[in-house]
């Protein structure tokens, strides 16, 4: 046997990639079409449907809202999730079963149900503003991902490193920032990206929490498709993809490169 993978293996891998990429190709193609209806392959090339996104004020507003919610929700989830994951791993807390379940609950319970529950219990119950409801809902759906990912990262962190720092005179809280955090940076980046994308693409929870005047981009896309069948949907999808990639790149640049350089 040689080290080269079998040609069949390569063929299968190529097919899988093709299958994964195909929808992207179709969406990008459709977005560039010059027609007033969705079609593939594109007929005539134009950027007018991208321009159209910004001409529709609902899209402009929801893009901003979605980004705000995703960014704030992710940051809040990190703020809560990092200390939670740290405490769980540092003190090897054996969670009571029900509490462990609580952390995966938002993953297990269908998001639709979760969204409905939030609507019932929170928005209707307290009459909280829509933006706040959305923010809380999104924070809650991404929190389990954050805790899980950072926990995985902390599980391979040797806490005697932290103890060494403390024994050398570094106060515990300071040690967390100077010693622990730099060593789980990869986990924080992964958690950030995962949470941000999850929030940005969420439909089911947002569906219940959006209301008059405030909506998120995926919800606005749904609303738009119900009325129009023009390529705007495709171009918005492409934009969403680029936003996601851009955020990943920025995070990777600011947090990632120094991490890779260590």
């Amino acid at each position, binding site marked *: 046997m040689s080290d080269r993978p079998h040609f069949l293996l390569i063929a299968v891998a190529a097919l899988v990639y093709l299958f994964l990429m195909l929808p992207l190709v179709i969406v990008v193609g459709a977005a560039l079409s010059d027609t007033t209806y969705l079609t593939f392959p594109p007929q005539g090339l134009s950027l007018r449907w991208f321009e159209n996104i910004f001409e529709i004020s609902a899209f402009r507003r929801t893009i901003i809202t979605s980004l705000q919610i995703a960014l704030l929700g992710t940051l809040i989830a990190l703020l809560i999730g990092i200390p939670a994951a740290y405490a769980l791993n540092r003190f090897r807390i054996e969670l009571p079963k029900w509490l462990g379940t609580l952390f995966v609950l938002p993953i297990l319970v269908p998001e639709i149900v979760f969204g409905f529950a939030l609507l019932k219990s929170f928005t209707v119950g307290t009459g909280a503003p829509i933006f706040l409801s959305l923010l809380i809902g999104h924070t809650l759906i991404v929190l389990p991902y954050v805790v899980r990912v950072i926990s995985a990262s902390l599980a391979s962190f*040797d806490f*005697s*490193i932290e*103890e*060494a*720092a*403390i*024994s*050398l*005179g*570094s*106060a*515990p809280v300071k*040690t967390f920032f100077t*010693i622990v955090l*730099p*060593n789980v940076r990869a986990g924080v980046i992964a958690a950030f990206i995962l949470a941000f994308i999850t929030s940005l693409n969420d439909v089911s929870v947002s569906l219940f929490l959006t209301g008059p005047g405030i909506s998120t981009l995926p919800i606005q896309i749904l609303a738009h498709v119900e009325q129009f069948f023009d390529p705007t949907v495709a171009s918005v999808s492409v934009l969403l993809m680029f936003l996601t990639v851009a955020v990943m790149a920025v995070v990777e640049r600011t947090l990632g490169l120094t991490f890779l350089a*260590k």
Partner: protein
Amino acid sequence: MTQPLDLQAVSAHYGTTKVLEDLSLSVQAGELVSLLGASGCGKTTTLRLIAGFLTPTTGSIQLGGRDLTRLPTHKRDIGLVFQNYALFPHLSVLDNVAFGLKQRGMTPAERRKRAMAMLERVGLAPLADRAPGALSGGQKQRVALARALVIEPPLLMFDEPLSNLDAKLRVDMRVEIRQLQRSNGTTSVYVTHDQEEAFSISDRVAIMNAGRLMQFDRPEVLYRRPANTFVARFVGFENILPFKVIARDGDMVTAETAGMTLRLSQAVYGAIPDTFLLATRPDGLVVSTDPTAEGLPAQLGLRTYLGRAYQYQCETAAGHLIANGSLTTPLEAGTNVKLVPMPEQCTILASEGGR
């Protein structure tokens, strides 16, 4: 900069499980004391109490007259060396060593100077800019040592620092540790489960078992005069037989076990109580084929080759014993012999309840 350490009647619990009971230990200024014992006997727990990662349920810990018992770890000023090195992966070797100096508010230039000087002492100055990941195990442990020493702590503690190194390096490193410790005169507590390691580098050794201190003395005393059967077995007195004195004649004592008698001199063994345990190493029982020899009648069983001697499994009326015999005359299984105790490889222990 060197201070005595004093543990007084310290107990520790994990949850409701008691892992240390009434441990009292005094380490003199500049002394290196080892905690020696099987895995799980509470050595690390003792270090963690002294370091402040764990709070004792009772008792107190003093360092140079300072009461450490409730002081947080980062204010204790104790140098720690861990088994797995615990270097900061994201910092260079130099920054690892300078870390403690930084916490002490030293200027970058001063930090660098001192850290480099310390690296020089452990022979790692050329590797100052490396990442810890790019070092061998021995080098990592040297960096850890330098990092702990550079803050000039009044107390240094080691938790099995050499367990992850190979045998040859282990011996070199322990000499190096001892030399550095000696020249700095730093009071040190050294945890190991390796008897040779503990005995070779320590001023005194504390032998622990199941959360209790069994004996605390100089290695020479532990080796020759264990205080109880636990320590006796630990240091290699593999044969322990209960005896009753049946006659005394001046210094000479006649003692009996399972119908066998032995005459022992109090001039050699010290005062012998009416009931006692005779503990011998395999080397301390001479295998004699002379039927008139003053010893315990035995029948030889399995013979194994140790290189420096043959070892025999022996059956006696009092039970199973292990004796080493000379290389010049290998004896066959089934041979009837006398096992003659050699006083310098034997010791008398007080009888222990239930034994």
